[in-house]
């Protein structure tokens, strides 16, 4: 009786161990593909993307990727998040080297279907991020005096989205500040802002 049960368990674990070994590579590849796809979606045209890097801002760590074309960095894809209605909204935010938002893409969210979840399907809401210049426009929803058009009936989600983009912009400034420090000292403005904040 016990023998049959243990034998079954042993056999099943063995099968699963094998299956795990076989599917491990495809699973890792699927995750990497997903990241690569969202990076490609949000940064300007590039030749290659750097390995995952980590930037620290206010004691929090943010993952980011650098897109390179002809040996020059042309943009950054930064992973940032903010608390929405149902939980965290995690975004991949792409900025070009001047700090203008190129595009955004939602990595994960748990917003209400049909309301906040429209942050992944509402075309007007998604389109407004292309070319959003945070040095000219204010990163908060119109209700709060900013320049972001909120999704109808989902102000909390829209606020969180704007907050996450804002965080990404701050992270960009700190990355860029450091990069400029090390090199020629071009594009001084982001560096100054970073220094003021730190």
């Amino acid at each position, binding site marked *: 009786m016990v023998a049959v049960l243990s034998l079954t*368990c042993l056999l*099943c674990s063995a099968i*699963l161990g094998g299956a795990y070994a076989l599917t491990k590579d495809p699973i890792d590849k699927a995750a990497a593909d997903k990241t690569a796809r969202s990076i490609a979606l949000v940064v300007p045209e590039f030749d290659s993307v750097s390995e995952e890097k980590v930037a620290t801002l206010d004691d929090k760590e943010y993952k980011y990727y650098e897109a390179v074309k002809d040996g020059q960095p042309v943009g950054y894809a930064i992973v940032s*998040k903010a*608390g*929405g*209605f*149902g*939980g965290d909204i995690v975004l991949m935010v792409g900025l070009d080297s001047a700090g203008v938002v190129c595009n955004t893409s939602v990595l994960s969210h748990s917003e*209400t279907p049909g309301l906040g979840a429209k942050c992944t399907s509402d075309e007007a809401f998604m389109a407004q991020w292309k070319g959003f210049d945070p040095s000219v426009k204010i990163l908060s929803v119109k209700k709060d005096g900013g320049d972001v058009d909120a999704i109808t009936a989902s102000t909390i989600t829209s606020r969180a989205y704007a907050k996450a983009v804002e965080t990404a912009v701050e992270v960009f400034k700190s990355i860029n500040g450091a990069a400029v420090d090390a090199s020629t000292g071009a594009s001084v403005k982001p560096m100054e802002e970073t220094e003021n904040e730190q």
Partner: protein
Amino acid sequence: MEYFLIIISAIFVNNIVLAQFLGICPFLGVSNKLSTATGMSGAVCFVITLATLVTYLVNKFLLVPLHIEFLQTIAFILVIAALVQMVEIVLKKTSPSLYSALGIFLPLITTNCAVLGVALNVVTKQFTFGGEAHFLNLGESLVYALATSLGYGLAMVIFAGIREHLSLSEVPKAFKGVPIALVTVGILAMAFMGFSGMVK
């Protein structure tokens, strides 16, 4: 304060039956009478909390160190099945009165997806509860499990109360039994939607 948020969130905002759709089968099956509903809720409460404690420890000290998290589903269901069996035996020996109240529900609990659902949720999902998203620690997990099962009990008892009245009223033939019960749960779920957004 965080524990308070967990409790409110688990009982009202993300009620396990009415918002998360877990444990529906026994919810519809044994809610005909208030007394059986209370008995089932008690048994579920006991098992969910205990199972979450054990599966949390199994995950942390066995599965994670060995890097075999992919066996979570199979390990947890075995733990739960064994646990339910043990609870049944212990209860039978030590407290016949409690056994006669909860005993008949225990075999049904192994396949109650609320138990496995809560156990898996605790170790795989990040919760916010007003602050940063994080995995729950042991204390939070236990509070979450207990509060969730209290939410189960609450939904069950409210629904059983309604159903006792429902059985006396005349409904169209095709609606008799489960269909009218489902429509009633729908309206109840709508009432619980009023809590949404209260705790993030």
